[in-house]
């Protein structure tokens, strides 16, 4: 792979990195909503149960982050197989 092709691959990878990073950061900092008036509805109980939207959000964020990593790794594996790393 020549230098220009390498730079093109790097640009694509960097874009991908930043997209995944941006999604993660948006989700992560949305947790702050729990402490604002906008997040009042999150703090309430879900129906008659003691589980609150805030608790559910915590668990959902952890699972989502793991899934994002998995997608990122699978995308990387696909591009590696196509010879991008050579």
């Amino acid at each position, binding site marked *: 792979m020549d230098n220009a092709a390498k730079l093109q691959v790097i640009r694509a990878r960097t874009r991908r990195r930043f997209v995944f990073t941006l999604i*993660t950061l948006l989700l992560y900092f949305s947790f702050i909503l729990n402490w604002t008036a906008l997040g009042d509805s999150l703090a309430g109980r879900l129906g008659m149960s003691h589980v609150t939207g805030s608790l559910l959000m915590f668990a959902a964020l952890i699972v989502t982050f793991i899934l994002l990593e998995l997608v990122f790794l699978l995308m990387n594996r696909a591009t590696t197989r196509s010879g991008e790393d050579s």
Partner: protein
Amino acid sequence: MDAVAISMFLVFVLATLAISYWASRRTLSSQDFYTAGGQITGLQNGTAIAGDFMSAASFLGITGLMFLGGFDGLVLALGAFAAWPLLLFLLARRVRNLGSFTFVDVVSQRLERTRIRVVAAGGTIVVVVLYLIAQMVGAGKLIQLLFGLPYEVAVVAISVLVLAYVTFGGMLATTWVQIIKAILLLTGVTITAFMVMYLSGFSLENLLATAVIQHPGGERILAPGVLFDSPVQVATILVSMLFGTLGLPHILMRLFTVPDMHEAKKSAFYASLFMGYFYLALVIVGFGAVAFVYGNPAFFTAEGQLIGGSNMAAIHLATAVGGNLLTGFMSAVTFATILAVVAGLTVSGAAAISHDLYAEVLCKGAPDARRELQLTRLTTVVIGVIAVVLGILFQNENVAFIATMPMVVAASVNFPILFLSLYWSGLTTRGAIAGALVGLLSSVSLIVVGPQVWVSVLGFERALFPYDYPALFTLPLAVLVMSVVSWLDNSDRAAVDRSNYHSLLVRSEFGESGRPPPMARH
């Protein structure tokens, strides 16, 4: 504590000492000492990273915070977890492809080697020492509670044990102690969570309902607002935890213990998987502590204080749901946790001094290997002594709070240097140093004048700065200074720094199989 529990403790200590002896016979060079020869697999390394990061601060501290304030304690758990996806997305490949022993190796390939090493190693040492405080306090309190030893004696005993691991076994012993500890901790947390659910009829609803009845705060513990009442306060914690973790030298160092960047990326993913499970289980353990410890007077002093303080809520929960057997197991696991983290930190601190400063700066990259290893071992002893002194000074603080302080420094010094040197062609040595110094001074100063140190440690009535963890302000400040100074830098060195970026970028993405990376112009 009964004989079974003490036996578990001793078995663990003896097993880990045996590992150190085994590892010491395989630690012949500095590379062995710092990175276990680069031969750890992705799964092993991911487990060791999880073992390194699921510290006393996470287990004892977050459970303690949930015991005090319910849901709010989870802020630190989310903060501790979310850095791992970003480590995978932004750093794992590039850092692994460029470095050899420490993250300072990465930045010094592009920037002027001597000056940047001195500054970055200084940041590393501050972070390591601050992080050690949290671990020593957690361990000291645990031993004090379990064996009835004076706190000071407990802290010295722990330090001696860790020094035995690190001085002789280096990173190989540290890695295996961390792997074993991660497995034990996950097992212990699973058993505790299972017992909590068993006693709650396997109903989360029952558990939360019991917790609400037992806690003085009642239903407020299920929602935000008990410990933290302002969004800015929460933002300061989240920024510190996220970007601080990405700048922790002992975590970044683990990326070099694997053979290549594929294994490095796998490490980050496995670490996330284990930690995701751990933090989800902590929800049950935390609310379990509220439900089963509050109502039991045996865990409280005559004055109504929790015996051993809130940091010991997790251990009391083990007693409440599993008797002496589970208490002994969880205590041994927690102790192992602390030893493993302290060992990792000590290796990292020793590497900053003997590799980054002695070998690379003083000896210009050509040190006498035997002397370097000797210096490394001497440095571990000095770090151990510092840890003991600071552990005694900060003994009355919550460990989760203390552990966030080094995160602030790492977020304001190490992370911006590392991130900008990997992703911004305009960064110059002058800009990096100016920004790092501003980040270091501002973060340490604001921590000192903040509530945790100014009021709790130094005894003043009111803090001069309202937040404990100022990274929300100091990280942007450091990045701003790095950017402005780099933009204004017209020196010859700045031109070299900028021209080095292209080759570093290609190398960071594609690596260079079979031979070491060519050095940039210095």
